[in-house]
């Protein structure tokens, strides 16, 4: 029974990889990192500072080795 289960690990893994590939291929998957925000004020065009992207933080890079 244990051997049978062990034998099924790779087919499950391969299936997961196939889903991962499809997801990546179709909708960007893990490399498509963005967030959808609704009801953005129309005035952003006149005053860009009133809206701030959710990706607005970046820890200061110390640079180099």
């Amino acid at each position, binding site marked *: 029974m244990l*051997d049978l289960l*062990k*034998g099924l*690990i*790779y*087919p499950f*893994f*391969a299936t997961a*990889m*196939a889903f*991962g*590939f499809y997801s*990546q*291929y*179709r*909708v*960007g*998957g893990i*490399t*498509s*990192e*963005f*967030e*959808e*925000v*609704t*009801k*953005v*004020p*129309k005035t*952003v*065009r006149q005053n*860009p*500072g009133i*809206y*701030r*992207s*959710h*990706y*607005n*933080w*970046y*820890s*200061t*890079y110390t*640079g*180099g*080795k």
Partner: protein
Amino acid sequence: MSELSCPNCGAPVPFINKASVYAVCPNCRTLSLKKDVQLEKIGESGELADDNTVIRIGTEGTFRKKNFKVLGRIQLKFDLGYWNEWYVSEEDGSTAWLGEAQGIYFYTRLDTSLPADQFPRVPEPTSEYPKIYEAGHGKKDRLSPGDTFTLGRDWTLKEISVAECVGGEGELPLNFETGYRAVLLDIADGEDNFGTIDYSDEPPLLFVGHAATFQELQLRNLKENAVAFGAGLVQARSIQCVGCGASLNQLRPDFSKSIACEYCGTVMDTEQQDLKVIAKFEEVSKEGIYLPLGTQVKLPGRPESQVLGILKKSSEEDGETFRWTDYLLHYPGGYAWLNENGNNWTYFEPLLGVPKWASGLKRIYGKEKYDWYAKSESNTDLALGEFYWKVKSGEKAEIEDYVSPPNMLSSERTEREIFWSKGTFVPFQTMKGALPLEVASKLQKPEDIGACEPNPYKIRLKRNFRIAVVLTAIFFFVEMYGCIKAKEEVVYQGNFAYVQTSPSGTDIGTFNFHDNSFVTDIFEIKGEATDNVEIKIDSPNLDNKYMYFSVALINADTDIAYDTAIETSYYHGVDDGESWSEGSKSGSKDMAEIPPGHYYLRLETQSDFRPGAGAKYNVQVLRDVMSPAPFFLFGILLWLPLIYTFFKSYYFDSRRT
């Protein structure tokens, strides 16, 4: 059919086949030669021995769609017992020989096509251990069992026998002389062909044909109340050990030729009523013997059998002694061996043919290829019970194994013969289930890996390899299709210059950060709602600095923003005389399923430039982009577990005993 009179007693002597020129009178055993319509006495046949054969003159059969009828026979005696050469006539008048020895049959025909000088030479045919040499001009090579030589085609020498003619009966195409000793060579070619070279005549006689099982011959009109070789119909008999006086039970007197006392190790010849000691094993120890004599073995898919004999064997390698036990199993009509080595069990069946050589030190039997595994010299340390040959103490043989789990081929080569057998690994649980409870309970679970134990990792590796190949191919073709189909249309492009207005390295949104956000012109994104968008930022003059862009792609029609961030950072230098660089002057982000519409970008930047300094950068928005990332990412991931399985498989094989 014609009938002539015996020149000795006048009894009628029938002749059925025209090729028959010799006959033995059924009444007085006179051997006569046919001359026109008369018989001339040329000798006398010895009394034929009762060898438990089921065949008789008049027996009919069918082999390979040819019907035949037995007309006569010559009986020979050799090491293992009796050997009958039955002379048969086929429906079309052609003749053949049906060899019968130890329950094995050979259907052969006389082949007179080859000149005498092509036959292997036997310079001393009267020797008890005759030497065989290859034929040919100046060739002096000695042939041993297992060696290959050419005689019309390539043959392998299987066995060298010295047989003594016991007598004959019926009509025959050949003369024979009772008591005459002849060298016989059994040969096989790995293509299901079998042959015998009989050196009783000059030039030698070559018989070529095939091995056959009792069932394949479809014999009819057999001897009444006869007992086939080892059929197990003869009652067991009690005998008293000549060595210690112990009472022994010979289970299959019709099959076995010798019995080794399980108490004192004395081996006796059981062919005669008066038991003769032929060998003695000094040390009798039953340690490590799991199946006692007489144990019933019921392996799935195999005939129900009984342990008749036990051989404890050993071999030396690099100063280390390896020990194993062979159990002789008998079942009605045949025998097999059960090998126990390190608590691993293998079931061996005798092979009639010789496996063919294949390139790379492999052997082929049937359609299966076997890899060379090991070679050793075995020594028989102890024999217990009964055997179909006359067991001797200290018998040595050269053993060579080839494996193709769960099967293996094993050859046992002595001076006189090479014996091939095919083994099949018996899993521990199957072995336990095949034995009576009291015997099964004493079996020990193996710790090592059996020589032909199937490698579960190799099986998995093969299967997983196939899965990985198929999926990689699918990924590749899907990716290729996606790349060909992708439009990669640039829907927006803008060049900008960034100047630092905050203290160096200030994070967006923190107290000291000065807002530098701006929006681009509106641009149109076309296509399907399922198409993606890629935003690329390239800052070619970036040097030992980073720029972090907070990006929002905003739909001017629906007021939906798609927020993301892109980083460009490039650092380089020299450390300890070694130059280094890291990061990239460009960056990008994919956004899946962006509906068509009118969009603009809102960009906000932070960096580690000093205030007043900065860099130029350009921004591109592309529609319907295909990246090779999915293929490389998942294609590679798919193969990683196979590396692990490969090493596990390698480790498993390295632990075989």
